[in-house]
């Protein structure tokens, strides 16, 4: 059955999670998460801190190992097999809350590092791709600067470009705007919106309600390691079914 989910439906389901559980010592962070994300779909996950939403998306590219359940990414099951892990990682781009750019490399080198060393592209091809992506995120003039010389919003756009340089099929965003000053949030969200419209499969952990309403195909609420509610954005925000969702929305709206 699960093979079917993974490979048979691969064309429509980019990510299949089946009863995923995760413990940190005694603490159970994920209580059996099951979900599917279709090709070109954008899913926004909201939830209080400690609800397991970050942990969950980190299991998708194996930054965290799941203890039970199964995860398929584009038909490949995530197991302890290192080959599968690196294959999956090169198909998934990830953007972090704190950018995590490499401070000792220029913007351009940040972007070309993985294509040159994982995909083994020649320097020229990687550089051209980097410039193309920097233009896409709107900061081609910053290519030769170092991350420390950029604003937070610019750094996060470089981080997006760096993830896109590997030509991933899926992008994961772990609270991409939480560390940004208010006036810089929009420039990052605009890039993400353009990306979603271009047909990228995306999972976004974020509390940007405007973005969720406007861009998401589905919104999910995580609480205490469980997926409490999932619905289309209009239904999720205007007429949520669960009490927990109502309570959460009343706190953040």
């Amino acid at each position, binding site marked *: 059955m699960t093979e079917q989910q993974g490979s048979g439906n691969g064309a429509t389901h980019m990510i299949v999670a089946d009863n995923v559980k995760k413990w940190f010592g005694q603490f159970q962070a994920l209580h059996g998460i099951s979900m599917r994300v279709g090709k070109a779909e954008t899913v926004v996950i909201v939830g209080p801190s400690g609800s397991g939403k970050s942990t969950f998306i980190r299991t998708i590219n194996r*930054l965290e190992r799941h203890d039970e359940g199964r995860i398929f990414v584009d038909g490949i099951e995530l197991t302890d097999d290192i080959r599968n892990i690196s294959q999956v990682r090169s198909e998934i781009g*990830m953007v*972090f809350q704190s950018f*995590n750019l*490499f401070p*000792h490399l220029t913007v351009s080198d940040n972007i070309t590092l993985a294509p040159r060393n994982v995909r083994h592209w020649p320097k020229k091809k990687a550089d051209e791709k980097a410039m193309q992506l920097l233009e896409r995120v709107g900061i081609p003039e910053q290519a030769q600067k*170092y991350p420390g010389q950029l604003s937070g919003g610019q750094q996060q756009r470089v981080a997006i470009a760096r*993830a896109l340089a590997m030509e991933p099929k899926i992008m994961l965003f772990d609270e991409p705007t939480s560390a940004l000053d208010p006036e810089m949030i929009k420039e990052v969200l605009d890039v993400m919106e353009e990306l979603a419209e271009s047909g990228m499969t995306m999972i976004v952990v974020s509390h940007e309600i405007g973005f969720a309403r406007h861009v998401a195909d589905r919104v999910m609420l995580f609480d205490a390691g469980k997926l409490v509610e999932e619905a289309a954005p209009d239904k999720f925000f205007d007429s949520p079914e669960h009490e927990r969702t109502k309570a959460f929305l009343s706190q953040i709206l």
Partner: protein
Amino acid sequence: MSDRRVGPGLQEDVGIPTFDDRERALGAAPVVEPATPAEWVRENLFSSRFNTVITLVVGSLLGFFLYQISKFVFVTAEWAVVANNLRGFMVGPFPVEQIWRVWVSAYVVAVLGGLSAGASPNRITWTRRKRVVGVLVAIVATVLVVLLVDTMLVLTLTFGVVATAAAMLFVGRRQGGRLRRPLLVAWLLSFPAIMVLVVGFGGVSPRLWGGFFFNLVAATVGIFLSFPIGILLALGRRSSLPAVRSFSVVFIEIFRGVPLVAWLIFSKFVVGLLLPPQMNEPPDIIKALIVMTFFSAAYVAEIVRGGLQGIHEGQYEAARALGLSTTRMMAFVVLPQALRSTIPAMISHFISLYKDTALFVAIQVTDLLAAARRSAVGLQYFGRIKETLLFAGLLFWIVAFSMSRWSQRLETRLGVGIR
């Protein structure tokens, strides 16, 4: 209080200091420069009664010391002890007829050093003060060499080294960045090449190495071998494999826990135990060099470990998320950052390792310090140890100081773009 500030100061109050503003502020700030030396003296040395007292006390002490030292250097001292033992100072018991091998090595280093200095992207900006200091140093060095060296051949060869380095500096400037990669390869090959040149083809066994030549060779071996071994040990200490981790910890703690002198004396037996019995015993010097390298590697490992601890977890995660293998993550993301932050501690360690090569006297190597002490023992120069020690100290200091300067330039060069 702050309401009287204007211009760039206001920006600061709003909380958005930027690079531009800081630069503008520096440019616009009134620079109070004393007009004459007399003014400078009044402002810096005699600005209050208390300062005047301090200036007078410290000044007279300094003057006294300076007088005593100059009196010794220029009047009392008899430098013949250094001039006549110069070869012993430089190469120890190295046979005279083989010394050309050392000279060739010196020329190799001069060529590479000159080219590297010339091709280096950050050139020295010659301020007036630097020019004055440079010219003074050059004059003093020339006088010293001319006074101490008594044969024409050695004098010519010495100035030849300097001239070669200068010529190569010029060539290096002309060629610029193109040379950097070939130079790196040349440097890496030069040391084994020099070793072959010194030992091979009927050359000189390590048993006869000595003098400053020995200190330099031992320091080079120790530094360049212990650096990679130390990095591996540091990575091993953080490895997830228990066997690798415990090996690294045990290695580090054992080598760090015993004085280097003791290790040098032990080395005779320790290395013998580790080698298969059929193998020919290497000379004591080689055994001691191996043990010194391990000793230094233990320190390097701990310095690198400190640097690794400063790397944020997010850097590892970002590298992994991009699909980089562990080796590439370490080589391109983690180590470049970790090693940069350890430069001051690392150079400090290497300078002390270099000076610790004087401890080889414990296994009967006549290094520079031993040569200095020994040359004042003979009847002819009995009691002239002040002169010989001063000279040995000067030689040690010149190299140590150069290392320190070079590390500062390295730091500025690698410091680009780091917050």
